[in-house]
């Protein structure tokens, strides 16, 4: 995703001289080298100074520019939180805060590098919009949208590297609208972000059991597409939410809220990261499994084992 983000941003910067990227000693790979060579005055490295990174983006936006702040998700949102809140959200400036490697992708770096609560935290901020693409193609669409929108601030939650393409044949991407990656009639899996890969694997297994399965990318986490989720809750006998995020304030909690509001009658199972700091190391999948997120457990716990 980092590479497709860089490429999409490079293209946007070529088309629009007001596009800036402000990084905090972490640079996206791929086309970012082209970006920094061709537009050195619009590639700004603040060093290890994330508060200033956000403030500088605000200053650029106050002058009509369209900046992106970029670093590892914990450092782009948590460290400079008050700058995100006051400088970007309170002033409602079109700045994209890129949270790279969100969730527990940094699976060997420990809890300081895990981003488990970002949707809840960013989602609590007035004016903030949240987009969390599930694969490199969605990341391109989302980046292009961020580079042109003028609504206000965006938290763009992306993965790292090596995510498979999942949306090649999906319906067109649209900000604020859920997107079916496959359509069925029995079970619908709601998900977003990198863990969508696991959701697709679970969908394959359910289909192997003879069930008709939908998978929905809820890439826009704020504003959430309530109508789209309502439709999923109404049109399937079971809805399963899978997210790489704490149980509070993410897709699981919000889907339950919608289900209550509309008196949904389907079975609803939700799977999130634990509300805990875990001290495990290993692969990304190892960390997810340690949090209880594995295809086998989700199938079992959702009554499809």
């Amino acid at each position, binding site marked *: 995703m980092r590479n497709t983000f860089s490429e999409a941003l490079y293209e946007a910067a070529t088309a629009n001289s007001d596009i800036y990227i402000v990084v905090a000693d972490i640079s996206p790979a791929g086309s970012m080298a082209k970006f920094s060579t061709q537009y050195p005055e619009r590639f700004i490295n603040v060093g290890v100074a994330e508060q200033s990174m*956000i403030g500088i983006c605000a*200053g650029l936006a106050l002058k009509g520019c369209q900046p992106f702040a970029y670093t590892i998700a914990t450092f782009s949102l948590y460290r400079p939180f*008050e700058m995100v809140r006051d400088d970007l959200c309170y002033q409602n400036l079109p700045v994209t805060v890129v949270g790279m490697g969100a969730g527990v992708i940094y699976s060997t770096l420990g809890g300081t590098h895990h981003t488990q609560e970002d949707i809840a935290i960013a989602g609590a901020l007035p004016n903030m919009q949240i987009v969390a693409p599930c694969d490199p193609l969605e990341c391109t669409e989302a980046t292009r949208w961020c580079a042109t929108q003028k609504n206000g601030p965006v938290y763009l939650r992306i993965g790292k590297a090596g995510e498979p393409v999942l949306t090649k044949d999906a319906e067109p991407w649209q900000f604020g609208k859920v997107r079916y990656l496959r359509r069925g009639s029995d079970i619908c899996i709601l998900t977003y972000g990198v863990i969508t890969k696991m959701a697709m694997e679970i969908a394959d297994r359910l289909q192997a059991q003879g069930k008709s399965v939908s998978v929905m990318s809820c890439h826009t986490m704020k504003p959430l597409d309530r109508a789209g989720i309502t439709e999923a809750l109404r049109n399937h006998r079971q809805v399963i939410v899978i997210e790489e995020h704490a149980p509070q304030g993410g897709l699981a909690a919000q889907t339950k809220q919608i289900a209550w509001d509309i008196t949904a009658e389907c079975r609803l199972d939700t799977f999130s990261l634990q509300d805990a700091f875990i001290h495990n190391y290993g692969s990304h999948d190892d960390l997810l499994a340690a949090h209880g997120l594995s295809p086998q457990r989700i199938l079992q716990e959702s009554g499809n084992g």
Partner: protein
Amino acid sequence: MPNTANTLQNSFDIRAAKERCLRFRKRILDISQQVSALHIGSAYSCTEIVDSIYHNFMRNPGSGPDTFLMSKGHGCMIQYVILEAMGVLSRADLDAYCTPGGRLGVHPDYGNPGIQAATGSLGHGLSMVVGMALAERTRKTGGIIYTVLSDGEVQEGSTWEATMMASSFGLSNIVAFVDNNDFQSLGRTSETHPSFYPLVEKYLAFGWEAVEVPGHDSAALFEAVMGRSGTKPLMVVARTTKGKGVSYMENVPMWHYRSPSKPEYEQAVRELEVAGQ
């Protein structure tokens, strides 16, 4: 980047500056009689600095290439009364200060006329100034960004991040002032945090041009800005007095926020007028 000295359009007139500053202080006193709380001491502390920025330094404020961002948002009452005098804010705006239906609060709010950023929280302004200065430089507008920091907010780590950034990026189009009244809520900074000083040396070490001047002396402020080399960001450390001009307010922390009673108000007006003559 052009040297400020070569691009200033306003000429300096010390008598006019004194007359304006007296008028602005009295206007703030008037407003203090309408509300229970305002940062009167903080506004008096930077009256000459902010007046100088609008009247002696910025080229055609409001329509020219330069920008003023009030980083010490709690001093914005002085900005409000200057913007009122310029016709950017109306008398009705000031009369409705901090009341339902009014649009002006104790801290500057982005979106209000003449206000560049919401700086109620300290330590945010200088990074935004750096971003603005980068935008002006890339666009080759020649625009200079002026800002006023409180000495309290210079204690914020974020301010030092931005301090390092401005000089590392060679942003010679930043002219900043520290309103160094040596007071914060719980006491005198020189007593509570002596290592805060010296300031000029810190800015020099961070690659800025820096100079210390008496901050209620408009002529000294003028000289400091005119004399800059124009090759680095400039920090003017302005030695000021919190509550300047009213004896019972000067250096008394309570006047960070309190409004004077009627007799106190009358005494303040008398003192300001005597001092202004």
